[in-house]
């Protein structure tokens, strides 16, 4: 075991994967010599050479399109999009190509690629460095969508994603890169070294895709969340004194519905929390599923706490961000309903 930040854990996942399998290649904007603007690929080019880890031209469609071609050849590319906000130029290649190649070729060609990208807000990044576009991928059949919330999972999930035979969208909550963040932006930053999930096996291990985990057990209400909001939800539960069961979904597609349903049937109440804008966010799907599967157990409507339906603002970041107060409010309302 070693203590790692989320950046170190992600880097370690690529390092371990590249070391075990020379089919794994890593590229993206600024990821080569420099090691990425968040330094997630630092040292990989030096260790594995310029043909295994290299800088790409600034063309996200090209990065993903080239990765698809490489995967068709037989490699396992793990590419970085510098910010999730910049994935849209690659959207066609992801949605029309990566997601459908296995299906449309009846398995002759497959697409084992990972598209990593920093996601979410909390860093005063304004509308082009703060978005959470996961719902734009969960609607796409053929993709897997992963959002880790801590270094341990980040490493285990990323290795699993690289080894997965299908395309995986890997969203890294950038506000968590250097420490857990519970939404109290005005308090001092805690480092990962102080958090139990900053303990990460140094070698190869995986966290299976499609498995949620109960982060904090509770009996009164289930909170379904992922990424940064796991920590915010934990804080909200603690501060409100409500006995919430916080489930960290980790993989959004495919979803671990069993864990969700078991919890909601137990608590009979549910709050769904994410940073992304509310309307048509992944919370809508979670809400729909919970009411479909647990309708007769529910004692209150499933509540959603999410980003407001505006572009992500700069100056009003902390009015916008669904912090612990808003989550706690939803928890109370759900308990009182």
């Amino acid at each position, binding site marked *: 075991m070693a203590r790692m930040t989320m950046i170190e854990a992600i880097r370690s996942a690529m390092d371990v994967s590249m070391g075990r399998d020379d089919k794994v*290649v890593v590229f993206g904007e600024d990821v080569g010599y420099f090691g990425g603007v968040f330094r997630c690929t630092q040292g990989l080019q030096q260790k594995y050479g310029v*043909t*295994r880890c290299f800088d*790409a*031209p600034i*063309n996200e*469609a*090209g990065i993903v*399109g*080239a*990765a*698809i*071609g*490489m995967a*068709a*050849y*037989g*490699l396992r590319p793990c590419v970085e999009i510098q910010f999730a906000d910049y994935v849209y*130029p690659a959207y*066609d*290649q992801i949605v*029309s*190509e990566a997601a459908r*190649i*296995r*299906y*449309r*070729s*009846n*398995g*002759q*060609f*497959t697409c084992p690629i990972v598209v990593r990208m920093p996601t979410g807000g909390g860093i005063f990044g304004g509308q082009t460095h703060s978005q959470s576009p996961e719902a734009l991928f969960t609607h796409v*059949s*053929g993709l*897997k969508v992963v959002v880790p919330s801590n270094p341990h999972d980040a490493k285990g999930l990323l290795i699993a994603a690289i080894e997965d*035979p*299908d395309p995986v969208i890997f969203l890294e909550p950038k506000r968590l890169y250097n420490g857990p963040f519970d939404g109290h932006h005005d308090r001092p930053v805690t480092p990962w070294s102080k958090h139990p999930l900053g303990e990460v096996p140094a070698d190869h291990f995986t966290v299976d895709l*499609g498995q949620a985990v109960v982060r904090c057990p509770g009996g009164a209400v289930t909170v379904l969340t992922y990424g940064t909001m796991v920590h915010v939800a934990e804080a909200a539960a603690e501060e409100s004194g409500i006995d919430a069961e916080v489930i960290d979904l980790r993989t959004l*597609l*495919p*979803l671990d*519905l*069993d864990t969700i349903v078991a919890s909601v049937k137990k608590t009979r109440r549910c709050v769904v929390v994410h940073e992304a804008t509310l309307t048509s966010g992944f919370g809508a799907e979670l809400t729909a599923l919970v009411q479909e599967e647990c309708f007769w157990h529910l004692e209150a409507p499933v509540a959603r706490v999410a980003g407001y339906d505006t572009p992500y603002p700069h100056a009003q970041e902390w009015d916008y961000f669904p912090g612990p107060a808003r989550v706690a409010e939803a928890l109370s309302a759900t308990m009182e309903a």
Partner: protein
Amino acid sequence: MSDTEPLRLHVPEPEVRPGDAPDFSHVPIPKAGSVPRPPVDVDPREIRDLAYSIIRVLNRSGNAVGPWAGLLNEDELRDGLRHMMTLRAFDARMQNAQRQGKTSFYMQHMGEEAVACAFRRAMEPGDMNFPTYRQAGLLIAGDYPMVEMMNQIFSNEADPLKGRQLPIMYSAKDHGFFSISGNLATQFIQAVGWAMASAISGDTRISAGWIGDGSTAESDFHAALVFASTYRAPVVLNIVNNQWAISTFQGIARGGSGTFAARGHGFGIPSLRVDGNDYLAVHAVAKWAVERARRNLGPTLIEHVTYRVGAHSTSDDPSAYRPKTESDAWPLGDPVIRLKNHLIKIGAWSDERHTQAEAEIMDEVVAAQREAEKHGTLHSGGKPSTRDMFEGVYATMPPHLRRQRQKAGV
């Protein structure tokens, strides 16, 4: 000083429209044999002219002339003729099958048969094509079974793609033929990625990308050129300029540039234009480009100048937007007739043998069709199962899809 006349938008228009007399006098056609053949390791800057000319081998009298001639023997040429004739017969039958409701959709190659058929001959086993929907010649010339193609066209129980994909959107990995997308241009950068992977792996295999004149306007065309140029990917990038993109003439995609091939210059990529209706010329240029790629000299861009004689697809009627007789006026002639005439000229073929070959080929195609139809056609006979529809979205079916399949009762 600036004068202040009002600005006007320039919207390019073709020379002629339905009702007008076809006119290709504005298309300069250099003499066969007139374009030099540089060494494959030439500095791209020295051959910029080749993007503004047309490499041609077969002249009007049916002789193969100039520095690009002489690469194929009589057997190979007869083989090439057979491929093109087969593709044409195949097209005719499938076109008809669509009219009979045996498939939902078909796209033919009439007039462009030489391009993919001749190119295929320059590739080696293990190389990979990233085609569009108009390169079935790659399969035919690679001896991919016609019956498999038909099974896919008919979406029948033997459809290798299980009914999931549109007719003619073939996939044939073992024949070096990547799964056709339907979304234009996406395959162009994928071809570059495949070639990069081969280079990363220290392999010797190369790839070829394919794109239509209209589709060069798509942004993935740019992505492909950027990546190919930067990493010197071992890839041949083919533009099939058949003058039309559905109803849109090539001037809309080409804009102020003289040619599509010239697009390569901004990337330092050697760019050649070739007479796409000349089997020998296409093959010679393909061989040159493949050799460059294989020798790690990097990408080549080829513009195949040809003409789409038929409709865009079975959903299209070109008489609405171009003169009906335009194809007859096309100055580069018909690829099948030109190769036939050449073979006759060199004493390797005759009108009789041609007629006989036509009949034999049609028999083969009909036999294949009969065989395929045993497995069903779109609306009758054997079909891919509903179960097949749920399979293959992922390597392992995830729970939500299993639930949906169960609910569907299959």
